[in-house]
Each structure stands twice: as C-alpha cells, then as structure tokens.
C-alpha cells in the first residue's frame, strides 16, 4: 500500500486539522485518488459531505496513516469515486440525499437514506421542499424460476428495521439487495449547531451496542480539534470500558449465532455471561451499557471503588465458563455443519471494502485501529489481533472468541497499570477557538471514524460519524449469494451490522 501524502503533498493543508492532515485538492487529484483506491493502493475510510464540499479519508502507507482530501463543488457536482471504487457508491448516494451534492458520473443514482418522507429534502445542504415519494427501484434479476422474497422493515425477531429483497432459485439465494435508511434520525443535522456536550450525547446514541466506542471516537476528534489532552487515567478508563463493551457484544453474539443455528443452549449460557458483564459495567460506571461515561475531555465518571475487585471476579468467571462452551461449540457436529463453509466472504472483497472488525479479520484483513493507528493506552498494552482466512460464519465466530480472550487480558493489564488522578480535563468554554479533528477508534464491530469541525465557543459546526457497518453491509449481500435462504439469519447475525449506526 502506498501513502497518499506524496500525491497530495503539493496541496495546502488545512491549518487547524488534527492530528492527520486535510488537504484541499482539485478534481484531477480527486480522480487520481479514486484510481489509487480502485487499484488497491489506498483504502477508503470514509466519504462525506459538507457545505459545498466533499471530504474523503483514505488509509495507506507503511506504517498506515490517514489522509483527508477535500474537494470544493461550487456547481454541486464532484467526480464519482464509486464509479471506479464500488465501496464509495452508498456514501455518494447518502451525500446526495443529505447535501444535494451529486456524484456527476455515478452508476447508481437512486436515493439511499431519503425515502421521500422527510420534512425537507437535502436537509444539510440547501433544504428543498419535500417531493412525493417515488417507488424504490430494486435491481432486477432475470432467469427461469426465480422468485422474490421481500423481508422487513419490521422483522420477526427483536432487531432493528431494514428491508431485504431476496431473489431465490428454489432455496438458493441468487441475489440479496438491502434497502436501509429506516432508522435515519438526522443525527448529523442535529449535531450541527449543537454545543459539544449535546453532540457528545448524540454520538453516544449512534448505535447503542457501540456507545462507548462511538463516544471515544467523537471525544478524540473534539479533543484533537481543541488541542486538549484528557488526563492519563481517563484514557485508561476509556480502554477499560471499550474492552468491556467488546466482551459483552461478542459474548451475546456468539450465543445468538449458535441460536440461529438452532442450538439454544449456547445462547442461554452466553447470555448469562453477557448479563454478568453488563451488571459489572453498571456497578463500575453507573450504566449497564456505559452510555455517556465517556465525555470530551475524559470520563464523566471514575471507576467505582470496588470496580477492580468486581472486574477481576468477572474475568475469572468468564475464563472459567467460556472454555467449556467453546469446547461444546467444537464438539457439536450439527452446529459446525451450519457454520463451517456458510456465508463466505472472500478475502479480496474484504480488502477492497477495507472491511473492519471481526468481519474483515475473519477474511484475512489484518487491520485493527488499536494496533495500526495506535492511540493511548493501547501503545502500552500487549495484545494479539486474531486473523483467519476462511471468511465463513465459523471463522467470524472464532475470531470473536479469540478477541474475547484478548480483551480479558487487556482488562487485567489495565487494572494493574492504570494511573490514578483526575478523569476529566476542562474544555475551553465560551472562548474556545474553532478547529477540526479526526479520530479512528476500534469498536467491537470495527473501526469508527469521527470527524468534527468546531465553531468558536464550543459549538459543533459539522460532525460526521462513519460506523463500520457502512463498509460491511454491502459485503453481506455478497456473502449470502449461493447460500440457502434459511441460512440468512445465521449469516446476518455473524456480520451483525448496525442499522442505526449506518442510517444515523
């Protein structure tokens, strides 16, 4: 992978953008970046809109580094990245829905988040009056004996809403097309103009299962923009909360995946372990999901006095209980029969989409922001990043099992090495300068990108949060192809993409 800096070095860097540079480029360089993405020399981290401008964050180089390129679109158009590099397609559709900026030669011009019922069109650009909704044109499949199965947005289980359109030949899925956007809450529009603390609460509610990681990403971006460093203890506490969140989600999902293969006993045991983690979190940080525990400037709460004791007990319990469950998973042929070889995501696709988290790592993409874009305290922690190449449901389960073990190790290290002291630094108040900040943080699902531009006085001018799911949802469509319809819940759960984090 090459670094983007040599291509962009000639362009002026935005003065207040921290910690990685943001450069305002011209159309020619924008196209060069698209070509490099398409050639696999760079990875796309994010693509988002702004007032009269689009931004793209790319990852490249050895060691990897992040670069942001910005292109002004005075006439409301920009050269499509998605035309060359398909992972950008949905981003471009969202940019058009939210900002009215058009990827001029885009292959797919259908709306994405906008279902035609918002109170305004292009709400973050120049808001237009709503138009009557037009029916959504699903892609067609032609062939003998094909039939369609529409599913959702209201699903059978206790899950988020989204629509899946299956085209099947008999029992085999020929094509899955996702239609998302049902949970679009207008979070970025609500953040624009909000004070930092209110925007931080919205960031904590992008996706409830990743509330800690999203909060850390947002807080780090704000701290970068304001040049504020959180106290050392806060940084360690953030990692403690983030690893607890990871463990809770992995445990819950390992059980749920097995349950979707009709092996309920795993769900029962794993859900007990998950509940124990949430109860420990509530005792340690005052909230079961640790919502709002992380704040720009540090932590809003310190670890409870008996926290270390409770967490040591928790780690011991999981270390005692999980191995027999893993053994059970290993020894149950009927379960393996469902998970091995099912829902294979090819390594080439994981790489092309820069697919983060356990989904990418189960398909050979060894990337973890905690290691590769290291942020404290992970520079002081010893951990492995498990990677497999099979790319099936089984590989995703096994990566997650291994990650639970790594997180437990980290929790023990954090408890041993965490410094004492304050947990919250004061942010500059009414006299705060403006600035721009970006952060990439490893949530349980993968890397979360947060970008903010602050106006003077502690007001968010524009914020963007890119959930890992943006780069995973499209791959689920590929992974399910050729599998039977009945295995969709299993495959879907093994990805566990966020609807809310994506739709925002």
């Amino acid at each position, binding site marked *: 992978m090459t670094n983007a800096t040599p291509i962009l070095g000639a362009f002026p860097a935005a003065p207040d953008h921290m910690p990685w540079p943001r450069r305002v480029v011209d159309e020619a360089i924008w196209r060069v970046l698209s070509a490099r993405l398409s050639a696999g020399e760079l990875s796309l981290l994010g693509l988002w809109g702004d007032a009269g401008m689009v931004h793209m964050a790319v990852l490249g180089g050895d060691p990897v580094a992040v670069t942001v390129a910005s292109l002004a679109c005075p006439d409301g158009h920009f050269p499509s990245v998605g035309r060359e590099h398909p992972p950008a397609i949905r981003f471009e559709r969202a940019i058009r829905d939210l900002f009215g900026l058009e990827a001029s030669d885009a292959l797919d011009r259908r709306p994405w*988040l906008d*279902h035609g*019922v*918002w*109170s*305004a069109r292009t*709400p973050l650009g120049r*808001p237009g009056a709503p138009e009557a909704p037009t029916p959504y044109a699903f892609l067609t499949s032609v062939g003998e004996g094909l039939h369609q199965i529409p599913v959702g*947005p*209201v699903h*059978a*289980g*206790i*899950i*988020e*809403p989204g629509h899946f359109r299956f085209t099947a030949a008999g029992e085999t899925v020929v094509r899955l097309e996702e239609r998302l*956007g*049902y*949970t*679009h*809450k*207008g*979070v970025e*529009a*609500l953040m624009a103009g909000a004070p930092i603390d*209110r925007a931080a*609460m*919205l960031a904590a*509610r*992008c*996706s*409830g*299962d990743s*509330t800690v990681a999203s909060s850390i990403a947002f807080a780090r971006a704000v701290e970068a923009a304001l040049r504020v460093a959180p106290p050392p203890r806060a940084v360690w506490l953030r990692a403690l909360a983030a690893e607890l969140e990871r463990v809770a989600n992995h445990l*819950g999902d390992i059980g749920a995946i097995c349950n979707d293969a009709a092996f309920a*006993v795993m769900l*029962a*045991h794993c*859900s*007990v372990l*998950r*509940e124990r983690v*949430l109860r420990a979190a509530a005792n340690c940080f005052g909230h*079961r*999901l640790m*919502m709002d525990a992380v704040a720009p400037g540090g932590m809003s709460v310190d670890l409870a006095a008996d926290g270390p004791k409770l967490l040591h007990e928790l780690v011991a319990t999981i270390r005692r209980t999980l191995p*027999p*469950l893993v053994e*059970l998973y290993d*020894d*149950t042929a009927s379960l393996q029969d469902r998970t091995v070889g099912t829902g294979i995501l090819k390594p080439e696709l994981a790489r092309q989409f820069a697919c983060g988290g356990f989904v990418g790592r189960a398909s050979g993409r060894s990337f973890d922001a905690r290691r590769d874009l290291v942020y404290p305290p992970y520079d002081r922690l010893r951990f492995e990043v498990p990677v497999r190449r099979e790319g099936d449901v089984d590989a995703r389960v096994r990566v997650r099992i291994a990650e639970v073990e790594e997180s437990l190790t980290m929790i023990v290290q954090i408890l041993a090495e965490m410094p004492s002291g304050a947990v919250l630094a004061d942010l500059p108040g009414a006299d705060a300068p403006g600035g721009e900040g970006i952060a990439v943080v490893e949530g349980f699902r993968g890397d979360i990108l947060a970008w903010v531009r602050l106006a003077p006085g502690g007001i968010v001018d524009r914020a963007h949060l890119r959930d890992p799911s943006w780069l995973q949802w499209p791959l689920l469509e590929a992974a399910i192809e050729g599998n039977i319809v009945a295995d969709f819940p299993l495959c879907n759960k093994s990805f566990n993409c*966020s*609807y*809310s984090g994506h*739709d925002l």
Partner: protein
Amino acid sequence: MRKILLEGLLRRPLTEPPPAAADAETAELSLRLKQGIDRVFGGSLAIRLVDAGSCNGCELEIHALNNPFYDLERFGLKFVASPRHADVLLVTGPVTRNMREALERTHAATPSPKWVVAAGACALDGGLYAGGHACVGGVSEVIPVDLHIPGCPPTPTMLLRGLLALMAACDGRR
C-alpha cells in the same frame, strides 16, 4: 455437552424474583387499559417488538429479558414473530419518518383488542432526536399509547416492572 447440562440441573437457577411494581409506572396505565378486559388473555400476553428507529440500546435491554436472570416467559409474556399473533406492541425509538408507515401498518395488522407500550426516552417524545427533519417524535404521535416505560435505555428490571403492571391491568388478577 453432558457436563454442562448436568451442571445446569444441579445448580440453583439464576432466575431472580420479579421486581415489586413501582407505583409510578402503574399509575401511568391509562383507564382504557383497566376497563373491561378482565381475563381476556387468560394470563398470557404475546408481545411484538417494533423498533421505530431506536439506537438499538433499547433492543439490547429488551433482549436481556429473555436471559435466564429475568426469564420473561415465566410470567406468560412471550415475544412473537408477527403482529398478527400479538396482543401488545412494544415500540422503541423516536419514530423516524422513514418508519412511520411501517409502524402504522404493524399496528393495523395487530388484532384488537391490543395495547401499545412505548419503551425508552425516545419513544416518549423523540428524546434527543426530536425536532429534526427525520423524526416524528414520540410513538403517541402516530398510534395510541397505553403505557410508557422510561429510561435510556430502560433496564430489564424497569421493562419487567412495566410489563407486569400491564399484565396486572389486563387480566385483573395479581
């Protein structure tokens, strides 16, 4: 496998006694709910969850109701896969405009008599998301709500309390 099952048989159950009903929640039950529905459901309620645009935090805690600590089904409360099987719609989220029609149609597909429980701060009035281009703001803006369970998200204990209060009002026992 055998060892795990055997341990499960020998160990004390993890399931905890139900929480005492809190007056506040019980008081929130509307009169409509209390009138004329004695024993309609024979002590059992089928619940259909509708996520009307939540952040998924509420769903995580609703899920937890099924774990062995809370074991919702021992109260005759059961989550069902279709609104056509449901007595109660449990609705979360600030009702995004993109979900409004699906919520209305799910409500219409639920046979009468039916009850609607709105769970979480968002479901009350849109919470933090109120006021934008994308949310209606509160379940009661779209369908009639019988009970609201507060919290962001409501803990499983709060959810259990709310649902038990609903049960009590529904079958006139307890």
